[in-house]
């Protein structure tokens, strides 16, 4: 059993990686496999391409700093002040993540492109000269990445703050230290490991980030490593060797960062993080609290309200412009989206894949989770490691490996939805396993044992006790897998074929063929599918009074 599972999961995860490594060492003809000669040339060439590496590091650093500062301030505001509507704000904070960086980048391209961007047009209208913003820059890319992918920082830092025992601060106050002294000497040092961990984690994410750099960097020939990989596979003839070398290098750096992250988290635990949730004591911060509140509102404005408004307006226009007097409202973009063959099939395919991957995935993963966390099968730790491995691989690097692996295999699923489904399942395994494991671990073993003692057979127990208890987790996992499938870009972009289109790459190609209005409509449709699933998820979570994963 263990051996079979290890082979199955290990094959899914390891096979593309092996291909990636082999191809990155290929110094002969890039399009033959197995390679005719091996060497490190591809890696040496990388170093010559210094610009791409410095671009990547620069963007990732700025984006990380922005995301962590923003995340820290917002987490502080939401856990430590007495502001109105904190619960609602906290839920709004998670929306940008579900909006996806791709949609965010599109929206900000509409908002802040030089000259034509809505914000710049408004600036001209009030008499400003030149451009207020230029989103097609390193700073612009970092800004969008921080807004739409940096939510992780907020969630992680918030969790660190919530798990801090308030009595640690209270004893400082009792011993005579003032409010600010306590904050500087007790609170900040205690949350430092959490913040540091979040920073390293976010940095790793930013290194592998693709969508924002694609939408905002490529038009101005500004390449980071992920877009350079994509570019290399598009050139003629495609330079898979170079792409693989970059991909593997990126994977190595990201893997090192995540290892560093785990090290920090394990080491910096002190006694504050007990796994117990505390209710942190709100601080009286006077006027500063309102300043922080304004910051939160600003975040919601720039990461949710403005992007959605801009996309909505644009999607109904024949030509994108902010001036309603000059605007021509039309439903043509939606007609194209739902009517035009290729686009409409992308939409249908995405929903089909979402439902299919979520349904089959949840079934397989539920069994897998059961074996990993409940059975006493030897080697379950190893299975867990293999299953969780894809989260350490940048999505698009994984996509590249898969592309190369499946081109070279005689099973004819390349260019079909089957390959996409297999790829989605592989990269989404960690998400599904984490969600289901959260529920499985909450179910006390004695709940099942008691059924057996009462005389129930294993099957009867499964039907009457285990599955009903797992239901909230299964629903949550299904919805999260559906959402993740529908918004998937990094893997899909390498694996779509003429007869197997999905929505995220379709948005990209609409954007590249300069149809801003159509891509806006598509982006909104994708977001609508995601949000509907999200609302169902929240409802279900509330009904089962379980926690949001």
């Amino acid at each position: 059993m263990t051996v079979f599972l290890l082979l199955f999961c290990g094959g899914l995860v390891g096979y593309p990686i092996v291909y990636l490594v082999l191809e990155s060492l290929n110094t002969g003809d890039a399009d033959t496999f197995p390679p005719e000669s091996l060497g490190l040339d591809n890696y040496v060439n990388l170093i010559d391409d210094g610009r791409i590496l410095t671009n990547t590091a620069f963007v990732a650093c700025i984006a990380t700093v922005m995301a962590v500062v923003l995340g820290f301030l917002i987490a502080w505001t939401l856990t430590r002040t007495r502001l109105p509507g904190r619960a609602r704000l906290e839920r709004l904070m998670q929306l940008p993540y579900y909006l996806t960086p791709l949609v965010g980048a599109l929206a900000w391209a509409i908002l802040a492109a030089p000259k034509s961007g809505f914000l710049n047009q408004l600036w001209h209208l009030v008499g400003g000269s030149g451009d207020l913003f230029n989103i097609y820059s390193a700073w612009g890319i970092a800004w969008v990445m921080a807004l739409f992918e940096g939510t992780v920082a907020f969630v992680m830092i918030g969790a660190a703050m919530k798990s801090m025992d308030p009595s640690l601060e209270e004893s400082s106050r009792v011993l005579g230290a003032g409010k600010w002294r306590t904050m500087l000497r007790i609170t900040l040092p205690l949350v430092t490991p959490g913040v540091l961990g979040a920073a390293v984690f976010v940095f790793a994410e930013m290194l592998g980030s693709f969508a924002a750099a694609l939408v905002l960097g490529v038009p101005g020939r500004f390449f980071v490593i992920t877009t350079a990989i994509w570019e290399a596979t598009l050139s003629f003839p495609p330079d898979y060797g170079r792409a693989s070398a970059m991909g593997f290098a990126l994977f190595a750096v990201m893997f090192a960062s995540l290892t560093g992250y785990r090290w920090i988290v394990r080491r910096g635990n002190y006694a504050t993080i007990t796994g117990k949730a505390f209710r942190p004591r709100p601080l009286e911060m006077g006027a500063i609290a309102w300043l922080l509140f304004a910051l939160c509102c600003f975040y919601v404005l720039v990461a949710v309200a403005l992007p959605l408004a801009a996309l909505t307006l644009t999607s109904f226009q024949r030509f994108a412009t902010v001036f309603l007097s000059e605007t021509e409202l039309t439903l043509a973009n939606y007609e194209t989206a739902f009517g035009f063959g290729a686009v409409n099939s992308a939409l249908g395919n995405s929903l089909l894949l979402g439902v299919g991957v979520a349904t089959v995935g949840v079934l397989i993963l539920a069994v897998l989770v059961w074996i990993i966390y409940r059975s006493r099968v030897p080697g379950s730790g190893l299975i867990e490691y293999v299953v969780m491995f894809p989260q350490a691989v940048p999505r698009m690097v994984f996509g590249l490996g898969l592309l190369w692996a499946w081109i070279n295999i005689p099973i004819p699923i390349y260019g079909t939805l089957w390959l996409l489904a297999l790829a989605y399942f592989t990269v989404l395994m960690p998400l599904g396993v984490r969600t289901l494991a959260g529920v499985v671990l909450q179910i006390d073993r004695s709940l099942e044992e008691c059924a057996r003692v009462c005389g129930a057979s294993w099957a009867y127990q499964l039907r009457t006790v285990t599955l009903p208890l797992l239901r909230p987790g299964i629903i949550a996992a299904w919805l999260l897998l559906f959402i993740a499938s529908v918004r998937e870009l990094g893997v899909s972009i390498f694996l779509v074929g003429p007869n197997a289109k999905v929505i995220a790459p379709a948005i990209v190609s609409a954007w590249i063929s300069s149809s801003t209005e159509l891509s806006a409509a598509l982006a909104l449709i994708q977001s609508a599918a995601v949000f509907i699933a999200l609302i169902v998820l929240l409802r279900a979570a509330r009904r089962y009074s379980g926690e949001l994963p």
Partner: protein
Amino acid sequence: MSALDLADEGAAGRIEVRDLVVRYGDAAAVDGVSFTVGRGEHVTLLGPSGCGKTTTLRAIAGLETPSAGSIQINGQTMYSAAERRNVPTEKRAVSMVFQSYAVWPHMSVFDNVAYGLRVRKLPRADVAAQAERALDLVQMRQYAERSASLLSGGQQQRVALARAIAFSPSVLLFDEPLSNLDAKLRAEMRVELRELQRRLGVTSVYVTHDQEEALAISDRVIVMHVGGIEQIGTPEDIYHRPKTRFVADFVGSANLIAGRIAGSADGNGHIRFESAGGLMLEACAAHRPRGNEDTVAVRTAHIGISINGAAPEQANTQGNSAAGRIRQRLFHGDFIQYVVDWPPGQLIVRRPPTDLFAEGAAVTLSFAAEHCVLLEG
């Protein structure tokens, strides 16, 4: 032994555990445990955490797989290493109350209690009747339709109990069922459990680390320590005549006095014990003394204190008495604890709150030979 002998109710107990060994990896959690529980008897496995008591109970339920020994319930072999036989939990016809209650949160109280009945495919009317009877027994009838996730700890405890007795099992197992309740509720439930167990006449094995609980509700107590049995006996036996240093120390509170055997006293079967301070004590032994025993135990509650010169309250001539001086007095409410200096060292004495002596007072200590017990080891 033939199957016929085993079926004979007089000869075999309801539960027979023989030479049971349960291993986790290399460590033996239970190492060669044997005992018998008679029909309708309430036996408690008592010991500190990690002594193997819960593992033993779970092995009886079939939730742990032993590696050696045998378990018989109602004369049927449920587990036997020699016969390579291991009957699955659901076929053992036992019932169990879990420490965590294990009340299913996705069902109503009634559905929880009716579970075992429905598993047995009883007619609908019987299910309702028996479940309601069980709920009546624990006074939870009015909560039948409530969702089990909305109950307090004490209520969950009652539901778990009702569920365990609803299908009239012949053997009932309890895994520290009261340990999650607060002290007052625990004392109440203790009384109710004892009452219920007597009324149903069901054979039960009860696991606890609370010695008071064990003494209060059991017919017999089995004291366990690091995977083995230290002593089996009635609560009075265990309390008055502890066999080992561990039992004397773990159950109740006792003074352990070191020394050596100095011969036998005249005629009455008592022995003479010379304590480390040179004081000669008259002690009794539940076993046949080997001669190399080196400790006697005296319960703190068995020692009398009187002011020098006053007539000793226990005028027993064949008892022990010695001079002492009160070093410290701690008022506990239900009793007063004195620390008394006496020839062998220090002695802890518990007296009712009416027996007041000043710190520093010179006193006479006295205790009967029956209460000065020679320990086997």
